[in-house]
């Protein structure tokens, strides 16, 4: 079983402590409450994997805090990164887009 770490019990993502291949089994331990899941994508070392389903528009939580918003529906076992999460802060590009209409 490959290892991941969950930083807070509020989190909906875990961080891979080793590289995980597509379909590999992962054991998740949230402060003593554990379960197993399968990776739905290759997860590079240090990258995040969803441990709960996250709907499009819902917050992504790590360290018990909001790290961004899901830009599409994310399933348990999905790779969670810049392709499906957007930052909510410092988005001058959004203001610029609004200004241009």
């Amino acid at each position, binding site marked *: 079983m490959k290892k991941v770490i969950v930083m807070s019990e509020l989190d909906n993502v875990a961080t891979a402590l080793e590289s995980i291949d597509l379909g590999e089994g992962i054991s998740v331990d949230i402060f003593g409450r554990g379960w197993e899941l399968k990776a739905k994508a290759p997860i590079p070392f240090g990258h*995040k994997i969803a441990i709960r389903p996250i709907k499009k528009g819902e917050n992504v939580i790590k360290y018990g805090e909001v790290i961004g918003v899901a830009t599409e529906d994310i399933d348990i076992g999905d790779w969670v990164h810049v392709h499906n999460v957007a930052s*909510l802060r*410092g988005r001058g590009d959004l203001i610029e887009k609004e200004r241009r209409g």
Partner: protein
Amino acid sequence: MTLWGYIRPDGSVGIRNHVLVISSVVCANEVTSSISNSVPGTVYVVHNEGCGQLGIDYEQTLRTLIGFGRNPNVASVLVIGLGCEKLDPRVLADGISSSGKRVEVLVIQEEGGTIKAKEKGIKIAEELVSEAYKMKREPIDLSSIVLALECGGSDATSGIAANPAMGFVSDYVVKAGGTSILSETPEFIGAEHILAKRAISEEVARKVFEIVERAEKSALAMGVDLRGTQPTRGNIEGGITTIEEKSLGCIYKAGKSPIQGVVEYAEPPKGKGLWIMDTPGHDVQSITGMVAGGAQVVLFSTGRGTPVGCPIAPVIKITGNPMTYEKMRDNIDINAGTIILGLETIEDVGLRILEELFLVINGKMTKAEALGHREFAITRIGPTM
């Protein structure tokens, strides 16, 4: 372990005894580095500023250079100026010499050019070095240490392993009566509410929100996605997705201590304990600001690996990434990757960093020092005129 340092005329404590050759303006850089390279026992600082700067931008450059000269790791200073620049080398020298240490000034135009200035500068520098070699280390207390906290080339392991271990050390130094500086304001974005809760007063909390808002607004004003630069390309490859995630990992390096106040770039903390300095996320500019503010030693965590050092303060490199440690052993002092591998706890590694810190205070060279890494950069506010 007994700690040993150099007690300066103003009562501050140095852990190094550098003779610093410093240029007041970009035009004096060649003469400055040339003199220093000819005199073993000196270090030099050169930079691109000192002329064509306005108002607070000029004042910040002057404050940074004075702060470097005043830093307790510096025994004495030779200032090199050109002669017509905005930043008067004598004003710089006066700002440094009020600390009680010896400061000499050499002005290239007054000496009659590069060759004459170099000849005279080498003689002065040699004299300063022979004086500095007579100074002896004395027993010192950890409470006289000002720690700079930095992270650079972060990846997912920084927030999980290296920064929490560094936070243990910062809390230890603060509890012992020392001082610690957390910097890199853009890397508080998304974590400022946590820092504000740790502020000792409403006013300090408000100041934390204020500097973060200022940093975020400057990105918004440029009409760009902050993600173009924060997190960096390397951060993203290392698993950090957003600035919020980077920030939440970053602030672990300041442990759990209460925040005493917020100071400007290169401004010394106004007391003991944990302080915030408003600096950019740019590692070299941030370290330069904290060392100008009086930090004698830098703890620097890195996930991706970085060689960066400082001309006058030892930089202790810590990585939380076991693969980076193996790849860049020449540059990294502490392997905190053992936390990721489940071999050590955060506290185990914290104690190892603390032991290394004590050794470095007492004179052990860090990897960055041994390799000659002496990066220096002053952050700019306004345009060049």
